[in-house]
């Protein structure tokens, strides 16, 4: 598995993911738009339904009042009208008008109440005869609004909600009717009459009139009553983000249903006029705006995007982790391969020497006792090297498996160091290193495992022999500080390049330069040494030595005596 293939796999994962994410995002966008459109159209439908029912309600009230007006017997005209005015909340004012004479009731002048006086002023144009009596919209003669009967009779199941709503509104207002309702057939005599929406000072007033003979009489509707009834029966919107309102001719909100606050200058998203019954009045809908104050429908988009983001992140994270794992495995595999070849090489070199000298001795051709002794020394040294190598591998495996056992004892380093260094004197001398020991004058006792300590020192000395031979010196320096005891092994070799100072303690790591490639090694020595020292409560550190060279510091916890 190469770096290139990792990038390839990574791209294979990344590109489809991004493609899917983009597609999903667009789909969510479309869906959101569709939902918005649907919300708008359903809100529009509802507004239409509400507007229709208001119109039907008003029309049916007007219709019934008109019928009742027609039925008033001429001899009891004023009495009946005044009775209505006093008892019926939908009747604001009543009047009787005669051509040529003008207003008969309420009589203009001092006897009029203030309300009547305002009423007379309001309709002065009509009462003075300047404007003829003409209906603006509903002709009352025998016509019953078709919608009302249709609504009462029809039973389309899909529209039940809408109709319940409508009938609520209609019922709320129709209770305002005057007198008894007449049977359909009995409305025969066609008289002229109608309803006039009348704007005075930007306020709507509605006047209903009937002409009988030359006489015109009628009522003014109390719009506040009408509004009050409509307000109490106004349907609530189903969702939070929508506001239904009833507005007057100037766009003032007469009533609002729906929680959200509507800014004063806000233009409605949908407006359904209530003309001709209530000209300039509208049922309006405010949907959520983009500042978020009223927006609810955007929730789908937000939620969808969030889920999508989580999905993409999960895929990329998972892919990333797999790739990282693969990369690590690749590095590990490469290290292991080089480890095996290194170990083989390491094993082979001493074995070759041992075999060669052993064969020479075995042939018995070497007679020179000194030579024999030298050969034997080489064999012993190489065997030591083999042992150390095998020990390293064994220790490594034990450490990896957590089965390393230590035999802790008190060791006086001032006595121990000279003896251990003595055993390694030969390879040190052979490498041309001058050994120099700086020890304090008093015993320095630490708790440690003798074998482990041997192994650590051996590894470090071996490194010095291998890589720092041309430096010509190896200084062993033991010092006590407040809390710890530090043993430094310093050489004048090339030192460790800064980039590798941390990783030299990692397993299988070898400073990969021309110097080290020439020398065999497993990349285990320092890693094992640090781990053993740490297991013993100490540490192994690297410090660059002043004016060139390396310095490995063995730290032991201060022995408490």
């Amino acid at each position, binding site marked *: 598995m190469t770096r290139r293939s990792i990038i390839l796999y990574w791209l294979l994962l990344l590109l489809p993911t991004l493609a899917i994410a983009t597609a999903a995002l667009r789909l969510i966008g479309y869906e959101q738009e569709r939902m918005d459109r649907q919300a708008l159209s359903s809100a529009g439908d509802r507004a239409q339904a509400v507007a229709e029912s208001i119109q039907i309600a008003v029309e049916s009230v007007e219709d019934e009042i008109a019928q009742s007006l027609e039925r008033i017997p001429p001899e009891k005209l004023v009495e009946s009208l005044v009775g209505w005015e006093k008892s019926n909340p939908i009747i604001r004012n009543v009047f009787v008008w005669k051509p040529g004479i003008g207003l008969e009731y309420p009589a203009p002048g001092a006897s*009029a*109440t203030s309300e009547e006086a305002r009423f007379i002023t309001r309709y002065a144009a009509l009462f003075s005869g300047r404007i003829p009596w003409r209906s603006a919209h509903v002709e009352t003669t025998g016509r019953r609004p078709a919608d009302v009967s249709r609504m009462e009779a029809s039973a389309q199941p899909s529209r039940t909600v809408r109709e319940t709503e409508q009938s609520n509104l209609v019922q709320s207002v129709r209770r305002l009717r005057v007198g008894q309702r007449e049977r359909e057939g009995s409305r025969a005599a066609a008289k002229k009459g109608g309803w006039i929406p009348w704007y005075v000072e930007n306020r709507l007033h509605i006047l209903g009139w009937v002409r009988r003979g030359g006489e015109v009489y009628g009522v003014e509707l109390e719009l506040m009553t009408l*509004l009050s009834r409509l307000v109490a029966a106004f349907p609530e919107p189903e969702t939070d983000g929508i506001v239904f309102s009833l507005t007057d001719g100037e766009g003032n909100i007469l009533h609002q249903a729906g929680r959200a606050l509507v800014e004063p200058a806000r233009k409605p998203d949908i407006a359904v006029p209530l003309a001709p019954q209530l000209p300039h009045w509208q049922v309006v809908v405010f949907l959520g705006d983009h500042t978020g104050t009223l927006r609810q429908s955007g929730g789908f988009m937000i939620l969808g995007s969030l889920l999508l983001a989580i999905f993409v992140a999960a895929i990329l994270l998972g892919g990333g982790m797999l790739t990282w794992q693969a990369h690590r495995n690749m590095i590990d595999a490469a290290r292991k391969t080089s480890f095996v070849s290194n170990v083989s090489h390491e094993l082979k070199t001493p074995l070759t020497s041992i075999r060669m000298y052993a064969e020479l001795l075995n042939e018995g051709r070497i007679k020179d006792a000194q030579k024999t002794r030298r050969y034997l020394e080489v064999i012993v040294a190489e065997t030591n090297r083999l042992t150390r190598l095998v020990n390293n591998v064994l220790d490594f495996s034990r450490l990896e498996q957590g089965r390393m056992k230590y035999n802790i004892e008190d060791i006086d380093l001032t006595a121990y160091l000279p003896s251990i260094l003595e055993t390694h004197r030969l390879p040190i001398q052979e490498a041309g290193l001058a050994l120099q020991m700086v020890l304090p004058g008093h015993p320095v006792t630490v708790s440690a495992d003798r074998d482990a300590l041997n192994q650590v020192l051996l590894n470090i000395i071996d490194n010095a022999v291998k890589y720092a031979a041309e430096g010509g010196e190896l200084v062993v320096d033991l010092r006590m500080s407040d809390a710890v005891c530090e043993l430094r092994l310093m050489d004048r070799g090339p030192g460790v390049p800064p980039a590798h100072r941390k990783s030299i303690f990692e397993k299988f790591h070898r400073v990969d330069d021309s110097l080290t490639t020439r020398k065999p090694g497993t990349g285990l020595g320092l890693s094992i040494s640090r781990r053993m020292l740490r297991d013993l409560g100490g540490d192994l550190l690297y410090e660059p030595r002043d004016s060139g060279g390396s310095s490995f510091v063995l730290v032991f916890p201060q022995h408490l005596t």
Partner: protein
Amino acid sequence: MNYPKSTQGRLRTTTLTVLITALLVWPVLIGADVGAQRDPKVTCKVETDRGVLPANAPQKVVVKVTLGGAFPEDKSRRPPVNLAIVLDRSGSMTGEKLHNAKEAAIEALKRLSPRDVFSVVVYDHIVETVAPAQRARNLEEVASRIRRIQARGNTALFAGVSQGAAEIRKNLDGKYFHRIILLSDGLANVGPSTPEDLARLGAALLKEDISVTTVGVGTDYNEDLMAALAKRSDGNTYFVESANDLPRIFSAELGDVLSVVAKKAEVIIECPDGVKPLRIIGRDGRIRGRTAEVSLHQLYGKQEKHVFIEMEVSAEKSGKEMEIASARVSYVNPIDGKRAASLARARARFSDDRAEVDRSVNMSVQEDFAVNLSAVAQERAISLADKGKTDEAVEVLNRSADAMHNMGKIYNNKTLLERAQQIRKQAGQIAEEGMTRRQRKVLRTDSYQIQQQQAPR
């Protein structure tokens, strides 16, 4: 006694019959008696400001019609109440105001009997029915729902009252007293919000026998609107500066509702030839020829309501005695729903003797008339101050105070002197600080309560 045997037998039978009859009838008689005693009654009285009028000159006479109601002490016979409490929960009510309003509402509900019906509506810019119309039982749950109300939003006063009315309407057929208590501290800003609009709503509600009592809290509410709504629906209006007063107001208000003695009271004052009604003071009414009509709607127990009418009396000869006005009050008895009427007349004598005329002054008419005039002056001062004519407003108040002071001095009347003092103080404050919002509310509520005579006592 020696009666023949047969006679003795007959006597015994007769006695027994009488006894049994008496036993059967007695409770009915007693009951009838008690019933007759306990039925609320409206009394009517008509007086002129002077018993003796100066002769030989046309003159203006003030006629006072007094309606009084007496209600039995026994509260168990009172008709059930249909009450809707409408609370403003808009943002400005936050804190103590809303807390006290809620507690006052709960306190009010506790005063209801199980026969009563109530509902609770709250509004900000939308309306919510906290408790739909229901009998006053198991109030704990409703109380906890009321306590959970939080302040927020704007003020849709019209919609709130409309919803309260809709809840009342659910029981409109029953023989209830219908009343909405509206509590608000702010300016209505959603829906119809002018005093005129709300007055019209009030007038329409009154036709359905629904009265709205308005309680304004703090100094930011629109007192014109609140007073107009209450006035046209024949409710009361209160100005509450401190939210601590709310429980007291609510209980006073319920006391009023629970003691209505007459509904839909209408007063028709008729005058004979030579007497002509000129104007009705402080109340809405209609004058047609020699007839004046005033609607009073509701009368409370142990309370008097007055109607003042200024009349023009033509010149009459000395020594003549004639009827000045007759008043007929027709009303609906709230207990049985039937119409009843009371009638009263006022007569006056004409005299040349100035001293006799002066001696005949009717102090109670003079006093109440003067107080009513001062209420009219207060209204005028408000409207002048609204137009920025603070100086004129102060002058109007001062003039009214002077007139009252003079009258108080002449008749040595303590009430008038105190009232004059009070108005002078108000005028002084307005001259100093201008018409503050608080001052305006004090004047408006004061004049309202004088003219409607609906202040809780």
